[in-house]
């Protein structure tokens, strides 16, 4: 909330907040127009999810997961993935529980866990590489350190893959380590997979729910906003076993009851279009990913040329950058804030370029570890990246 206000200024090149400035595919907009023209679709639909949408979701994910998914009992449609996270946490987490959160994390996990009365337990991804170029795969969990975080109070672990902000795509082996601990300690897994379609060459998105012993203890969360570049539609979903989803449905019926109808109908139609071509490279799930990969590469190059050190993401549409190499002296600025907060504010003011400081994504103990990084979002149209290029190319020409 803090940074979206600052970057609302149109003279600033906004690579901060995670939203596309590219247009959603035209068929998605057309389906919405078609839906809005049907009288019945402007009134309430089924509370737990519009029938045609949950049907489409079950088909797409049955294919991906290789298991039967009941559209009425195994799926809940929510107001964005955000709403799914909230419903899951309110349904299954309470006072006395501990929830493991991997740092850096999407910032809402911590306040949501606290709002449910539970204790967040943090474990950081640690950078393990001495080489020059770094990529998100270099950031790993220490298995022993992770095992130590599990105890009898641990109710759940929140997994985010591909990860925001680093862009790490957890490998099968890494997921197996987490799964083993979940099974051993009878812990739930809340798997935030909103960027599931955005994985780049050489990487594969694996659903932890498909690992042995995991389906029955995992809630997998997805997002229309990220899948179809329509963040403003605020539609998401939770998929899991009936005995868990039923509790999310109870939360839902006591919080907002039902999600908007025309948007759900349009989304269902868009999913049918892409479901039919899931074997085709033209499927939007894959074509968007290809488009983003070239933007990722361009962004990385521009940053490197300006003397910054980007961490090349294997997935997602964010890139974190080590800014310490620039040695911008901000010691005269308000000391109480972490370095990256000060850097971003300075960069917005003096370079007219915005990003998000990485310490926004950390628990209190690790802020020092991450304060030399800032996060850029690259799901931006060419003209935005062109404007960013101008700023980055001229960076060294201006003195700090």
């Amino acid at each position, binding site marked *: *909330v803090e940074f*979206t206000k600052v970057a609302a200024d149109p003279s600033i090149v906004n690579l901060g*907040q995670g*939203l596309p*400035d590219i247009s*959603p595919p035209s068929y998605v*907009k057309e389906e*919405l*127009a078609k839906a*809005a*023209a049907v*009288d*019945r*679709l*402007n*009134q*309430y*639909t*089924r*509370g737990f999810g519009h029938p045609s949408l949950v049907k489409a979701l079950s088909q797409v994910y049955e294919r991906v997961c290789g298991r039967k998914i009941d559209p009425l009992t195994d799926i809940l449609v929510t*107001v*964005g993935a*955000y*709403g799914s996270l*909230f419903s899951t946490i*309110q*349904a*299954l987490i*309470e006072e006395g529980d501990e929830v493991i959160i991997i740092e850096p994390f999407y910032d*809402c996990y911590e*306040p949501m866990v606290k*709002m449910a009365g539970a204790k967040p337990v943090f474990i950081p991804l640690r950078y393990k590489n001495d080489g020059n170029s770094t990529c998100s795969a270099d950031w790993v969990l220490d298995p022993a350190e992770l095992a130590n975080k599990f*105890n*009898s109070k641990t109710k759940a672990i929140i997994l985010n893959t591909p990860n925001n902000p680093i862009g790490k795509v957890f490998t099968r082996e890494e997921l197996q380590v987490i799964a083993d601990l979940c099974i*051993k*300690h*009878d812990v739930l897994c809340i798997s935030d997979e909103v960027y599931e379609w955005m994985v780049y060459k050489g990487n594969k998105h694996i659903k932890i729910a498909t690992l042995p012993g995991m389906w029955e203890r995992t809630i997998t969360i997805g997002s229309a*906003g990220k899948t179809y*570049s*329509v*963040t*403003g*539609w*605020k*539609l998401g979903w939770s998929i899991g076993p009936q005995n*868990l989803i039923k*509790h999310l449905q*109870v*939360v839902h*019926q*006591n*919080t*907002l*009851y*039902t*999600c*908007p*109808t*025309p*948007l759900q109908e349009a989304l269902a139609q868009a999913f049918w279009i892409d479901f039919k071509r899931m074997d085709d490279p033209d499927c939007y799930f894959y074509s968007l990913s290809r488009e983003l990969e070239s933007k990722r590469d361009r962004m990385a190059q521009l940053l490197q040329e300006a003397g910054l050190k980007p961490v090349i993401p294997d997935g997602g549409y964010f890139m974190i950058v080590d800014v310490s190499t620039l040695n911008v002296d901000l010691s005269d600025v308000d000391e109480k804030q972490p370095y990256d907060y000060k850097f971003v504010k300075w960069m917005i003011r003096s370079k007219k370029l915005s990003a998000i400081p990485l310490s926004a994504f950390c628990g209190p103990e690790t802020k020092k570890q991450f304060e030399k990084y800032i996060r850029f979002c690259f799901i931006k149209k060419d003209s935005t990246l062109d404007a960013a290029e101008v700023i980055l190319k001229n960076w060294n020409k201006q003195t700090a």
Partner: protein
Amino acid sequence: PIATSEIFKLAFSLQAKMSRPVQAQRLEGIDKNIWVEFVKLAATYSKVNLGQGFPDFPPPDFLKEAFVRALSGENHMLHQYTRAFGHPPLVKILAQFFGKLLGRDLDPMTNVMVTVGAYQALFCCFQAFIEEGDEVIIIEPFFDCYESMTKMAGGTPVFVPLRPKAPKDGKLMSSEDWKLDPAELASKFNEQTKAIVLNSPNNPLGKVFSRRELELIADLCVKHDVLCISDEVYEWLVYDGKEHIRIASLPGMWDRTVIIGSAGKTFSATGWKVGWTMGPNRLLQHLRNVHQNSVYHCATIAQEAVAQGFQREFELYGKADSYFIQLPKELQQKRDWLVQSLDAVGMKPIVPEGTYFLVADISKFKSDIPDVPDSDEPYDSRFAKWMVKNKGLAAIPLSAFYSGPHKSIYNHFIRFCFAKEEATLKAANDILQKWKQEKTSP
């Protein structure tokens, strides 16, 4: 030895975990929901659905056009996130529109917050203001979520009934005849009372609280320093020249009231799920806190369209073309039609002063559905289920709007929604007429 003790420790902790339910305690007692059940029944059996409260006519053309303009226009950024607490054009026009009605300068950024329907606005209020140890006064009959939302927040619901007064001879009962007993109401306020929920016009009865009745409530709120959650979603649907009075406009009330409104009810677009809250910043700041940790953003396009709808209504306010004048006029006719229809077959309607609901006494039809003495289920619920399955006519039992122990008090009433096309109301009439004939013929 170390390994074995570790195994024992793990085994014990797993055993303890397995004996605890997986779900959080806050879900206790709120898992049943009347709508899930009755919506399914209507979807399966009904030929004529006068049950769930939504219009079967479309939203007005100007609103649908605004929606299409927003989604297909040059500004494709309307498909992306907007301001979390409300799309700027919408909060601005809401502040302007309602500021005028309240006679107050409203700041769109701090006195207004947009929500996913009025339902989510209610949720934010309960989560923001109610916790364990708090009591919430709820007037019966009530929209059912007030009770479960109070419980989910850890609060204790305290019920006070509207009591019916027999109408004058030969006249039909009116929702006006259902009143609060002032002494009874006053007795419900104590040190634990945190809030009272007011719903005017009231769902399901259609009662429009008078100025005197609102003053009664307001005096008690001020005296006991109690908040008022004012659900005014049916604010435009008032009939017979009655006036909808906003309790927040009474002395001492603005500062302790959250007003809740709904685009779904205002513009006949329940599927858009756009609602709002209005009130002083000292209260709205807490709603914003809950909102940003639960839903964060509301969908953009519908907000843009609703903003344009309100802009139009602001310019046409009080004029004949205003949707806020035309809709209640149309609905009043439908109300009168359904009242006549029900009266003709022997179901006794309570004529509503507002909303698009009316409640009818089905005692004359009881013979078709025999009483089951030891049944857990209230009679009217069994009646409504039998009616939808056997007659194809869907309605909602009044007991749905009462707390557990009170469900059997008024168990021979059902609620009809009359926000329906003429054809629908005619079809309902045909079913009722046929049913009556079947009863009178041997």
